[in-house]
């Protein structure tokens, strides 16, 4: 039915007319949905954090126990000793609702992306490094430091980019979800080892914070790299899929 001659003509003629998209539609879609979800998670995560900007190691921790460290910021709860003479407004209600809703969006989108990435060969083709050599990695770093054109010319990911994306997709995102779930008393009851492997619920909370910092660092580096290599063309490629013309690649 779908292979009627009427339908097949434009489908087979199209690839000849239009160049292969820079990014597949699924990659573009999941990229921007994840972007929105991540920003919502970040904002709501910061709001939740300021209700108790102290971190602990182990199972339990509160203002009467010694912290592993504390952030030098005011808090949204009067019970937390911060050294500031004021208390920020409580924003945890909507922040928690938004955090978990965005987490669902990120998880479901990530699932779609990973399934697509495996089935379509996206990971194999675009993200797995052909080979790993320190010499190649240091050459990439050196060329990035030397000039911006090195980044602008490249429209296939170099080994460093590939490793960074793989780290974010297959290590940091799964870990941030895991440590987030390990803070849930219900999940802890169903899967105790998911908590104990980190040393306890407060350890999981502390790790959740550090992994989030790592993701923010990735985001900042990612933004700088996109900026340096031609913001307009890169963003357009990620929205429409259209690769840049040669004169746009500067």
């Amino acid at each position, binding site marked *: 039915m779908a292979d009627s001659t009427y*339908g097949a003509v434009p*489908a087979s003629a199209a690839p000849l007319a239009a160049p292969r998209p820079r990014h597949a539609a699924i990659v573009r879609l999941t990229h921007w949905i994840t972007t929105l979800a991540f920003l919502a998670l970040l904002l709501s995560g910061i709001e939740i954090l300021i209700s108790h900007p102290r971190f602990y190691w182990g199972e339990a921790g509160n203002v009467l126990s010694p912290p592993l460290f504390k952030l030098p910021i005011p808090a949204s709860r009067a019970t937390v000793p911060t050294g500031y003479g004021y208390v920020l407004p409580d924003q945890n*209600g909507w922040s928690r609702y938004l955090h978990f809703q965005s987490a669902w969006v990120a998880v479901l989108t990530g699932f779609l992306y990973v399934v697509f990435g495996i089935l379509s060969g996206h990971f194999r083709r675009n993200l797995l490094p052909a080979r790993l050599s320190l010499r190649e990695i240091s050459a990439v770093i050196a060329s990035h430091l030397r000039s911006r054109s090195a980044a602008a010319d490249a429209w296939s990911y170099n080994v460093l980019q590939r490793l960074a994306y793989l780290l974010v997709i297959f290590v940091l995102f799964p870990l941030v979800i895991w440590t987030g779930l390990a803070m849930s008393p*219900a999940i802890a009851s169903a899967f105790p080892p998911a908590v104990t492997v980190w040393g306890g619920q407060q350890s999981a909370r502390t790790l959740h914070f550090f992994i989030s910092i790592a993701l923010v660092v990735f985001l900042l580096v990612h933004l700088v790299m996109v900026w340096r290599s031609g913001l307009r063309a890169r963003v357009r490629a990620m929205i429409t899929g259209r690769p840049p013309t040669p004169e746009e690649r500067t």
Partner: protein
Amino acid sequence: MSKLSRRQLITAGLATTAGASGLAVAAALARRYGLIPPDAGGLYGPGETLTYAAQRLLTRHSLAREFSAGQISKPPFANEVSPLGDDFKRLQQGSFAAWRLAVDGMVARPAAFSVDELKSFPRRTQITHLACEEGWSYIAEWTGVPLSHILDVVGTLPQARYVVYRSFQPDWWESIDMADALHPQTLVAHSMNGGSLPVPFGGPLRLRVPRQLAYKSLKYITRLTVTDSLKHFGKGLGSSEPETGYAWYAGI
């Protein structure tokens, strides 16, 4: 933009239909099995429903972790509560002898229990983690009557779906579904760390729901109401928390 082929249109149409009917079937199943939380309306309803439904399916019978005596937090931290008022002070001066826990609603034999009566009931002692939604926590030993025992004594009717519980502080009320209400670790706690439950920690009576965050473990409970619907309690969102912006279900 390239023109859409008929094949693409058919595929997109089929995918949309499949997605929409999939969602409709999921929603119907969720309603059928009681997996929709009372605060499922509004902007955050989809996320809340996914969280509640997923956690209910995964944790219906799971037991909260219990710890060793050596892991008890010393000292535990009692979050601040709004002033309890003169009526509470009078009860406190009488060692809470006049405190009553009323049980009503969809029960065969409504009753009101004193603290001493509850202390004479079968008891369970457990060392569990109490985690506040703010991020802090402590571990303590709690002793109390399993809520399921109290529900047995008053004879819960088969259509019961939720237990609503109220604090002496009039603005605070909560509810849990029957999976949590009948859970062996859900206690009407009257003792903590070997002594009577101190007032800052919710004494004389506090509901302990260890598989949810601490705000479900309501302090100073005075009344349990068994019901098949939360619609007519407050604004119908399940507890006072959603009315102030917090989620009804606090498993995460």
